[in-house]
């Protein structure tokens, strides 16, 4: 078993060490991603990890796949452009809650409603870690941070409900303290045809003293076969359970999972196949387009 693990790391990891704090939730996510892509035997040269800015956005560097470590909040447009260019790529977004639900939240809504075939892993630590501890869009009401010293007075974004209502076809939530369960979600998200959001509780051990590993362990439970993930009403029911229970009961697992055509399957140009494989425009075609104007 140990030998196998070493071999796995040689294939999918770059050897670059992340700069996360000891105990950071993102290590668990790293393990889960590695497990998922290994078990799926993804071709590393056809895998593209796209991140934004923040602690978690260092993720692409630890892997030996292709990667784009882009700018704050723009993971989804960059990933969408790459996917449109080459549909044969497995495109995975890896970023944090500030990136995904704050500065870049508009893109989440639109990537979801377009059903772009990408997997979006959001490491949600409910705090801005890299900027040393300000409130995030998912910080809970009352959270005391450097930017909310008297307690946060804003309602947190509910990314699960937001993604479902925006048209995402696969919406799940994991916990970095349970990488095996998370890896399973990531695998299903990658295999899923269409937009997959995987929100991951990934505790910040340095700046978020409220939402700790223990805090989550006391509250989370796994959705099981009794939850019908193809049912929109049930999905919303589970998506709002944490809020309705005042964070006493927090479900993790797959909230929503339906089959719908992707953007690329419907678009007049993209449905012909990978753009990068399409023939070069010919002089005859160009001449015809000029002559349209005679």
């Amino acid at each position, binding site marked *: 078993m140990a030998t196998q693990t070493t071999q796995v790391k040689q294939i999918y990891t770059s050897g670059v060490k992340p700069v996360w704090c000891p105990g950071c939730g993102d290590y668990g996510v790293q393990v889960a991603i590695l497990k998922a892509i290994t078990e799926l035997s993804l071709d590393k040269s056809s895998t593209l990890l796209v991140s934004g800015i923040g602690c978690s956005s260092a993720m692409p560097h630890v892997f030996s796949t292709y*990667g784009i470590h*882009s700018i704050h909040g723009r993971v989804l447009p960059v990933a969408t*452009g*790459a996917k449109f*260019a080459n549909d044969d*790529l497995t495109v995975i977004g890896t970023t944090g809650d500030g990136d995904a639900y704050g500065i870049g939240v508009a893109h989440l809504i639109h990537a979801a409603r377009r059903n772009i075939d990408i997997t979006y892993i959001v490491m949600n630590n409910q705090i801005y870690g890299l900027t040393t501890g300000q409130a995030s869009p998912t910080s809970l009401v009352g959270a005391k941070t450097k930017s909310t010293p008297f307690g946060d007075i804003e309602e947190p974004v509910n990314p699960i409900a937001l993604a479902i209502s925006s048209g995402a076809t696969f919406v799940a939530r994991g916990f970095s303290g349970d990488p095996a369960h998370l890896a399973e979600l990531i695998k299903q998200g990658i295999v899923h045809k269409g937009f997959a959001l995987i929100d991951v509780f990934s505790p910040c051990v340095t700046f978020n003293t409220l939402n700790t590993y223990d805090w989550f362990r006391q509250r989370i439970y796994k959705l099981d076969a009794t939850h019908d993930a193809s049912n929109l009403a049930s999905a919303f029911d589970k998506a709002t359970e944490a809020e309705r229970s005042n964070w006493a009961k927090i479900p993790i697992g797959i909230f929503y999972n339906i089959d719908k055509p992707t953007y690329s399957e419907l678009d007049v140009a993209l449905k012909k196949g990978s753009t990068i494989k*399409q023939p070069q425009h010919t002089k005859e075609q160009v*001449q015809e387009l000029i002559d349209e*104007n*005679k």
Partner: protein
Amino acid sequence: MCAGNRYTSVFMTSVTVRIAGANGDGIESSGALLNKIASRNGLHVYAYRGYQSIIRGGHLWYQVRIADTPISSYGETIDILIALNQDAIENQKSHLSKDAIVIYDPSKVNADSLPQNIKRLPMPLLDIAIQQAGDPVMRNTAALGAVLKLIGLDISLFDDIIRKTFGRKGEKVVSANINTAQAGYNYQGIEKKYSLKGDGKVRAVLDGNTALAIGAYAADCKMYFAYPMTPASSILHWFAAHEDKGVVFKQTEDEIAAINMTVGAASAGVRAMCGTSGGGFSLMVEGLGMAGMIEAPIVVVESQRAGPSTGLPTKTSQADLMFVLHASQGEFPRIVVAPRSVEECFTVAADAFNLAERYQCPVIILLDQVISESFETIEDIDLSKVKIDRGKIETQASTSVGRFARYAITDDGVSPRSIPGTPGLEFVAATDEHDEYGDLVSDMYAGIDKYVEIRERMYEKRMKKLDTMLKNETVFVPEVSNASAKHFIVCYGSTTGPAKEAVDMLNAEGKDFGLISFSYLWPIDAEKTKHMLEGKHIIDVEGSYNAQLAQLIRMTTGIEIKEKVRKWNGEPFYAEEIYRKVKEIVDA
């Protein structure tokens, strides 16, 4: 006042027709028809439209200047006005040439307020439209028929164009159009007034945005990302309408998404472009910097409109020059180019992708409302000259070297890139400062010598591309005409067209003028440009208050241009206007 007329009578026969009325009067399609008919007659056309001005009811006009030699501006005064409503008379009467003809329907429009010298041509346009077509909207077609008669255009060509344009709508629509135009053409008492001699060659009539879109298509651009914004929107319309011809168009949620998708697509190996106006470009700025840092070859179109902020949405400006030159934090190589004609919109776009990929940097094509939305007849384009150069792309992993050094330090600053999907050449493109492999040095920096050195070398590597482009490309100097002249007009982009005509007018009066025009604005070959400008009497003509081109020239060459003709009211430059203002300066 009548300089324009004097000019046209000296050099050529040119007739300026303006169709004015309200939204829904079919003005746009009449103008487009007139463009095509003139072109089919072997004539040259320059057309421009004014729309959504502040007059109630939505005043709209379309102006077509027709000539038998090439023209590059749309004419200051109107020779023939089709006034479809009262507003058209009141708004346009100050723009009429001294012997202009005004076509109007006396049952709808009162022409009493026109100056005495203006020739009135009352026609029962509404009756003709109803009799011939049963549709009052065909009034403009009846008037168009009369215009064809006045300027001596072959109406038989009209049939073919109508069939091509309206054929899909069925024979009834086609014959209604033809009959209405014929009735207008045959209307009693209309005589041919101008004699325009076509050369028998049928040219394409395109607006700058369409020419740019086709140029990009010729360069094998396969993707366009945009959020609608006047005056760039018709580029988007073109790509959307041609998705079945091998281009992907995505309307995005905002311009931020547009440029970031472009970066994603370009990084994944497909030629991609985004486009907008100044407001949208403001949102694109951070993405532009990303392209600079990760060395992604993107093309960005910025069609200037009159700012600041929302400004005059349908009006023109050249005031974004300094903005696009400096947009984004930090320093990185970029190329900025402003096409000077509709034809150059094609050629510039066709080459922009080569430059972007050769130097792995963003290329900004700077248009403005005039060039984006003006129509010109263009000569045949030699498509064999359109070459595709994808720059340094690594396709084969080396067996001897370990990891692929995407950002390898090279003599020319350009590092071979790999396209995702290529085995063995994986790397991470990072917007943080990185080493040759793309690994971050930013997080470890803290003044540690090793990382300080990497930072210096990577920065230099990127900036070195500017030297390489200046060394290898010939385009980064302005074009000069009449190099031994005594005086020069200097301008860039769309102002070149009217400036060229102004120079001709000045020289016809014995003034010794040349023209120095910039299409490529960054980088500038400072030495050659300085050499070209030094010791000359130069007048700067441009569409900004601050005279930003003059600022750029001073910044790069040290030459201060004291005399300037500036315009910032949103209206385009007229050749006659440049002529008058420049003449005032040299006569003073």
